[in-house]
């Protein structure tokens, strides 16, 4: 049972790392600001959730699990609002420069 739990926790951690990787690849490879933002915030939130869950399983304590949950909720909150603000900023910049909305100026 414990071995199974550990394996599951390790799997969760690995999935989390994978999502982080995906986010970073998106950040580097995607062509314009809005799609980079899209890749980044979504992937990172799932990544953090997965890592929190894995770590909570490993610790095996309710207190720790609740703390990690709080951390994840806070991160979600921050990511949502700041992504929203960054997106508006980016959109406005694009309008200013007369280029098509969302396309990266280069």
């Amino acid at each position, binding site marked *: 049972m414990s071995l199974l739990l550990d394996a599951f926790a390790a799997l969760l951690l690995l999935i989390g790392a994978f999502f982080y990787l995906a986010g970073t690849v998106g*950040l580097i490879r995607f062509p314009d600001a809005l799609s980079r*933002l899209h890749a980044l915030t979504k992937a990172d939130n799932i*990544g953090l959730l997965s890592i929190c869950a894995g*770590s909570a399983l490993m610790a095996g304590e309710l207190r720790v699990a609740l703390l990690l949950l709080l951390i994840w909720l806070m*991160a979600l909150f921050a990511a949502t*609002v*700041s992504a929203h603000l*960054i997106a508006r900023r980016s959109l406005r910049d694009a309008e200013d420069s007369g280029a098509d909305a969302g396309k990266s*100026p280069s």
Partner: protein
Amino acid sequence: MNWLLPGLILFLLVNLLAGLWRVWRGPSSADRMMSALLFGSTSVAVLILMAEWQGIRALRHVALLVVMLAAIIAITYVGISGARDKGSETNPDRKAP
């Protein structure tokens, strides 16, 4: 199992520094801010893993502090860097190399 946690920590750190490329390259300040935000959430993940690996519970408190600050400061950064004013019609960041 012994290699898993440090391996993941290292992996996330590499990830983080790879994202540095976007800060360096830009081209817009939105891109730079975005990368800094990515670093915030990656740092939290790294701290959680370190807490598990080193058995220091307080590192989870550090993670909580970082995430609270990230929530507040990220909005601050975005608010400040995003705010436009009469003085700056053009965005010089755009001409960054």
